[in-house]
């Protein structure tokens, strides 16, 4: 049986932990609000850019001389997986989910005999993948989302991806990140960004007369401008989503931790009081039986 002093120390230490976790929860909650707003505000742009590009792509695809970013290199031997995680832990299954999905993707691709390369954004993803896939990591970034997602940083990552693509280092690029749904639900998402996935032509769209666009300055001119920008934009929007997801995951993880600490304190206090009362009773018995013996 633990002594009274041990129990007191234990209770105090759990109380301190609870203070820390509840403070972290509060911080995450306030960051979440900002990140969520940013993520939701960023969605329209990404959606519209995809729609615009989709329209454009379906009219260009299949024609000779379509840009590589759209048509692909014609093979899919080398895959680049961009693993987007957080720099910090203590956010529940957030990082693990992304890494697990990435690992699974690696296994699937390797089973098909493809070569896989990894680009890690965020320290945690790199640390976890370093164990068994260290040889595949071509580049890793950390500290990018310290002050929330930033377009400049996203652009930097995108430039690296584009430069590698131009150099022929990979054929297909996929992002793995957490899409923000709510503070308690984040969906691990895989999204192919290179080559741009041309939306499947639906029956409805097929029936409707195809909108023939006029292009200013020219089809190629717009595509060469729009495609790299789209890559940057997709990286940016996944960063925004990831940022919001991270804060949401941390908030709920810390909420759980705070609640658990509360439960633990209750249990420990109960044991503490029982032990204290037992000791008092024991002392009383000793005194009484001592007096009786006289």
């Amino acid at each position, binding site marked *: 049986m633990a002594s009274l002093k041990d129990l007191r120390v234990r209770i105090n230490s759990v109380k301190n932990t609870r203070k820390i976790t509840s403070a972290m929860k509060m911080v995450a909650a306030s960051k979440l609000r900002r990140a969520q707003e940013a993520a939701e505000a960023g969605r329209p*742009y990404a959606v*519209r850019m995809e729609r615009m590009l989709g329209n454009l792509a379906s009219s260009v695809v299949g024609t000779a001389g379509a840009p590589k970013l759209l048509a692909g290199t014609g093979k899919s031997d080398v895959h680049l997986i961009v693993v987007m995680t957080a720099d910090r832990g203590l956010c529940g299954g957030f990082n693990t989910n992304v890494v697990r999905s990435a690992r699974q993707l690696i296994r699937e691709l390797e089973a098909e005999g493809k070569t896989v390369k990894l680009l890690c954004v965020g320290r945690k993803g790199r640390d976890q993948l370093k164990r068994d896939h260290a040889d595949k990591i071509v580049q890793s970034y950390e500290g990018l989302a310290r002050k929330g997602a930033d377009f400049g940083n996203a652009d930097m990552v995108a430039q690296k991806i584009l430069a590698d693509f131009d150099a022929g280092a990979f054929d297909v690029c996929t992002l793995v990140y957490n899409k923000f749904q709510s503070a308690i639900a984040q969906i691990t998402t895989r999204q192919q960004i290179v080559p741009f996935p041309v939306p499947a032509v639906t029956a409805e769209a097929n029936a409707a007369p195809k909108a*023939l666009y006029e292009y*200013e300055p020219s089809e190629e001119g717009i595509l060469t401008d729009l495609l790299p920008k789209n890559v940057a934009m997709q990286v940016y929007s996944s960063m925004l989503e990831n940022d919001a997801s991270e804060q949401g995951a941390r908030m709920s993880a810390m909420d759980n931790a705070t609640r658990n600490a509360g439960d633990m304190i209750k249990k420990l206090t109960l044991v503490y009081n029982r032990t204290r009362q037992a000791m008092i009773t024991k002392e009383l018995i000793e005194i009484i039986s001592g007096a009786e013996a006289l």
Partner: protein
Amino acid sequence: MADTLDFELVSPAKLLVSEPVSMVVVPGTEGNFGALPQHAPMLSTVRPGVIDVYKNGQVAKRIFVAGGFAEVTETRCTVLAEEAHDLSTLTRESVDARIQAAKDALQEADSASEKAAATSKLKVAEAMLAAIA
């Protein structure tokens, strides 16, 4: 025939405008163009400049955009701007500060890509100045 078209202006940061309007004038790379309802579908790149939003024959809004893309279809006009500010929120001081910052960046740029980035920044800032003048 519908007499309005849905105008949407989005920047990476947020959806700025989404409303039915009677006409918009967009600064395309190859010259300004006005988009009315039933406009033939077109895609254009946008240079830094001012978008005029017309409602009932009058300019309802003037918005500065720092380049981007515009998509026009028969029923809508979507502008993807890299950056957008309502003209009324821009002040002389902030624009001057921007120009100065861009000039400084150009001075300090040593690689070609940095120089190009600074030059385009300066262009945007100058277009901004022209817009408020």
